[in-house]
Structure formats: C-alpha cells, structure tokens
C-alpha cells in the first residue's frame, strides 16, 4: 500500500515537533526515518499509526484518507522498541493475539501461528513465556505478531536497538530478507545510520521536525543536500573546511584549491570524506597541516590532522609511518569536494 503524508504538522503544547512533513512511500518500499533524538521521527511514525493526533495535514494509506481514523481500522502492524509482549501470555498466545482479537476460528489461528513461527525460527518455543526468552527471541516474537495478519504496512520503532551488536547485524539481514519476501510497505525509525543505509530503499533524514533529504542511501551518501545531511551520514564523518568560494576556487585557511563548481560564495564550506583524502608531503598537498592523532583501526588507519583551524581526518593504509606532530599535506580530487553555503547550509553546485 502507498502511504502519503501531506504537510504534516504536530505540536505538543507550544512546541512544534514536526514541521511541514511531506512524504510519499511507494507500495512495497522499505523507508527509513532517520534522525537524532528529538528529530520528530518517532512522532511521525506514531501519527501514521494513529497513536498521536495530527495538528495539521493529512495522512493517506492506499489512497484512503485515514487522518481521523482510529488505529485499529488502519490495518497497520507495529513493532515497538520494547517489543510490547504480553508477559502473562505464552509465545503462541502473543503471536496469535491479532487474530484472537478478530475472533478468527481456532484452526485458522493455530495454522497461521505455526507457519509464522517456522518462518522466524521460533518453533519449539511456542509454549514459553516472554520472560523465559532471550532478547533476540523476544524480538522475533514481536515480528511474528506483526506479520501474522499481513497488514497494509509495517511500522517499526527502533526494533533492533535493544540487541547487542552481533545480534543486531544478524537481525538486520533477516529483516531485509523478510521484507523483500513479503513485499509489504515498511516504515522504519532509527537513529543508527548504518541500519538506515543497509536496510532502506529510501532514507528520510529528519532534524528538528524538518525533512532534510528524502533519497536513496547512495544519493544521500554521495550527494548530501545540505550541511546537516553531509555531517550526519558517514563514519567517520565528513571533513569540513570553512572559507570563501571565488568562481569555483575555494580559499581556506589551510590552503586554496580548485573545485568542479563555477559558483561564488562569500561564506562557504567545503566538505571532503575521509576516504577521498590522502596524506602527502607538506609541499604536495592541497592543504597543509600537522598530524594530531593516529588510530589504527585494523584494515586502515585514521590520521587526524590539524589544518589551520580545523581538524581533517584521512583514511590511510594500515601501514602508516607518520608521527604525531609531523608536518604533512592533505590531497584530494576536485570532484570529491562537496560545497555548501555557510549561511543556509544548502548544497552549492
């Protein structure tokens, strides 16, 4: 089902937490709402679910306006961060609950639960109680409960954040595969950019209630629409140099270099990703500085350099023979430079 949000606003008292959100989710798409805490992503999800009222704007599911419709009629399923399992019901009863509430015949319920349990590898655990399960198992029960009635869309509120790192990676892959198999529209909220980049067909990055960019992960990574997006996505984060843009030539404190743009800005920011930088001798670099710190990650080394007033991080080879305090230069390709207006933060072409 397609889900569309048209000019959604939400205020709690005098605080506006979602400002003019416009979103169109395609049928079968995996859309991730990404942002820091307080960005409004969870509020947006809850408005889609009907758990919060909308201050202004309309929400449509499958073409039908559901803005004033109660949650139970929206045909949505939600997986909560805390899983929201009923502690006094067995795993079987928990998974069966959506069907039990709708008073489906017992045979149908049993068959459906057993089938789902097999799909998420919970068979054998159906008679246990939630408190007897591990975190990963509980998460799968929550998932099973969401899947069992084939809703119009899935809503997921940071479902992986309570799992340890290793399990999280495993479940990411499971979720991606399952969503592909079922083909159900999914809206997924997270603050973890890795989850967003790996799971999403498209990412909606929110900051303080305003949509910053709605695009595929590749585009968000390679063509960030503004300073915030550029700085949020990518680990380690993009390096920023403040300076002036004159007809495509960027003048910074640590050096000046040409870019692939022909624009001019009095206050501009140049951004280069660490993997696009190289450490060179100090007379060969586009900008100069001295080594501030060296961190060996394993398959590469992060060299942080102080260039002028800013810190620039470079992803270097794992064999790196630089020393702290050494004078070096940093070099990069013009087409790897991202340019932004310092005042508005917007991308400059």
């Amino acid at each position, binding site marked *: 089902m397609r889900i569309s949000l048209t000019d959604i606003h939400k205020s709690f008292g005098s605080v506006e937490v979602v400002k003019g959100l416009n979103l169109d989710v395609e049928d079968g798409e995996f859309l991730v709402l990404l942002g820091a805490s307080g960005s409004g992503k969870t509020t947006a999800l809850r408005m889609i679910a009907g*758990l919060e009222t909308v201050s202004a704007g309309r929400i449509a599911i499958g073409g*039908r306006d559901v803005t*004033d*419709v*109660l*949650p139970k*009629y929206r045909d949505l399923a939600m997986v909560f961060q805390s899983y929201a399992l009923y502690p006094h019901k067995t795993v079987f009863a928990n998974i069966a609950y959506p069907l039990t509430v709708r008073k489906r015949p017992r045979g149908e319920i049993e068959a459906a639960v057993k089938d789902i349990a097999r799909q998420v590898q919970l068979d054998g655990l159906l008679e246990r109680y939630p408190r007897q399960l591990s975190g990963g198992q509980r998460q799968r029960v929550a998932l099973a409960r969401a899947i069992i009635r084939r809703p119009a869309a899935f809503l997921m509120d940071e479902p992986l954040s309570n799992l340890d790192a290793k399990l999280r990676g495993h479940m990411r892959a499971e979720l991606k595969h399952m969503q592909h198999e079922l083909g159900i529209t999914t809206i997924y909220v997270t603050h973890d950019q890795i989850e967003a980049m790996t799971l999403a067909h498209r990412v909606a990055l929110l900051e303080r209630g305003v949509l910053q960019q709605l695009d595929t992960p590749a585009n968000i990574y390679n063509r960030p629409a503004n300073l915030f997006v550029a700085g949020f996505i990518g680990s380690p984060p993009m390096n920023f140099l403040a300076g002036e843009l004159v007809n495509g030539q960027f003048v910074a404190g640590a050096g000046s270099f040409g870019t692939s743009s022909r624009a001019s800005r009095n206050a501009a920011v140049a951004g280069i990703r660490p993997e696009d930088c190289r450490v060179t001798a100090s007379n060969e670099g586009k900008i100069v500085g001295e080594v501030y710190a060296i961190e060996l990650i394993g398959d590469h080394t992060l060299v942080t350099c102080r260039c002028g007033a800013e810190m620039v991080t470079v992803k270097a080879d794992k064999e790196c023979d630089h020393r702290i305090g050494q004078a070096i230069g940093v070099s990069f390709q013009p087409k790897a430079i991202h340019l932004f207006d310092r005042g508005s933060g917007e991308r400059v072409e």
Partner: protein
Amino acid sequence: MTPDKQPWLRRLIVRLIEPPNLETLAPLPRIATYAALIAWSLIVLMPLYWVVITSFKVPVDVDTGPYYLPFIDFQPSLDAWHYIFVDLGNDTLRPYFNSVVVALASTTLAILIGSLAAYALVRIRFKVMLASILVFIGLLVCVIVAVAYVHLAWQLAVAVAGALFLLFLGTLSRRFRAGVGNSDIEFWIISNRIMPPVVAVLPIYIMFQQLHLLDTHVALIATYTAVNLPIVVWLTRDFFAGVPIDLEESAEMDGASKFRVFFTIALPLVRSGLVATFMLVLILAWNEYLLALFLSNANAQTMPLLVSAQNGTRGPQWWYMSVLIVIMVAPVVVIAIFLQKHIARGLLIGAVKG
C-alpha cells in the same frame, strides 16, 4: 467493513460509543464517566460539608430538622466555636496541643529510626543466629514467669537475664551456625503490622504503669513510634534500594563512615519519598484512637478522645462535636491536598516491591 460503508444507524451508534481518536472519549462514555466521578465527589464532600455547616448552627437549628444552606435556610452563628475555643479554652487547646506534639514527635522518631534500620537492611548483610533468638525468647519468658509467680522485682529479673544473655553471646553462641538473614529480619519487622494492637495494649499499659508513665506524652510517643515503625521500614526500604550504590561507595572510599553516608548522601536522595512517608505516618498518628484510649487520661488526652467524649448524657452535642471534627480534620486535609501525589507514588512503589 470500514466505517464508511455501514448503515446509518450503526454509524450513529459507533459515533456515540467509539472515540474519534485516542486522546478523547466518545460522547456516551464521556457523559457516563463524568457523571460517575462527580457523583462520587459529592459522596466524598457531602459529609464534610455537613460537618462544617453543623459547626455553625445553634442547637435549635440542629434539633428541628435538616437545614442545608447557610444564610438561606438558617443563620450561621459562631456560638459553638466560641464555646469550644473560649469557654472551654484549655480543655480544647490541651488535647489539640497533645495531638500535635505526639503526632509530630512520634512520626519524626519513627522516620528516623525506621529509615536507619531500612537503610541498614538494604546495604548491610546481616546474619542473626537462630540460637541467640531462641535463647533470648527463653530468657524473656523466664523473666516474666519469675516476676509473675515468684514476685521477683522486675528490675532484678531483667538485670540477671541481661547478664545471662550477654554471657551466652560471648561464649556458646559461636557453636551454632544456623542463622536468619536480611529478608527474614525485614519480614519480621514488617509483619508486626498484622498484630492487632488490642493484643499488645494491655501489657503495654501495665508496663507504663510500672514505669509511672501512664497518661504522659512519652508513653504515647514511644508507643506510636513502635506501632508505625513497620510502615516506615516497608516504604523506605524500597526508596533506599533505588539509590545507585556507586554514590555511597565513592563516599566510603573518600573516608566517610556508614553513618555519615546515611545522613549526608542516602537520606537527601530519598527526600521526596521520605516526605511522603512522613505525611502518611503523620496522618496515622494524628487519627489514632485505640492506644490513646488505653494509655491516656486527662493529661495526655488527644483529639480523637476529645471528640468521642462529646457524647454527653443527653445525647451527642452535634454542634460542639462538629467544631472539634473540623479543627481535627482541617490540618490533615490541607496536607492531603498538597501531597496526595507524593503519597500515592510512595504507596505504589511499596506495593510493587513489597
């Protein structure tokens, strides 16, 4: 079937019963809910209202039938108030004063002693030997029997028993290993609440009589403190358990003694819970009747006794009684209004863990 496609009657019923969204009530449930809540509010407030206006009535107005509204049905007068405060003067003020003193003192002591004990039970591991307990009880029984039958002077009996007990502790007790732990001690302290005061009140009466402390503040304060101790321990135990232990450990590393940690770190951190407990116990002590009935007379009489003493030979003098009830109830009602939220949370925490 989505709501749009249903017949109009069904839609009307749905409109009346189902809420438009999760933040409001549907019309019918809303009316019913408010009606029920307002009805109960009237039930709650009506007796209090009646008492207040009765205190402003003259005897004639009370005897000739119900009058409901001041200035409309009857003329309010300050006669009863005047009598209670001026004519009776000291006879009113003394019990009031007694109530205030006894309630405040016993509550403060109960909070102090109880929270101290609760803190120790949460942070320190105890192991009381079963043998010591048995010996202690045995000696106690011997003392009682000796005093009752052989008419030994109780001071002597207690001294001898005390010495024997210490002797036992110093020597034989090490032979026995079995002991009771923290949770057992807690349970013992808290379970004393089950004991009906009427079982204990007679011996307590005798005890105070022997000590020549009957009808004094001290007797009431000591008894109330002991009676309310279980509640304080039960509630504050959970508050202390919720304090992160790192803060205390860090203070101990810096050289603070356990007492210092208790007074300067643990106690301030549970301040709000302590206030709630204080208020709860204060209300209990303020309203206590049975023990005061037994243990006090003219001097240490508290308000509940004064109220029940208004039951004159010609029938209760409702107007005077109402004044007394009003001045008894007013302070605690004010406390209640300001602190009900805290008290509720405190009770909730106690109920969840206890």
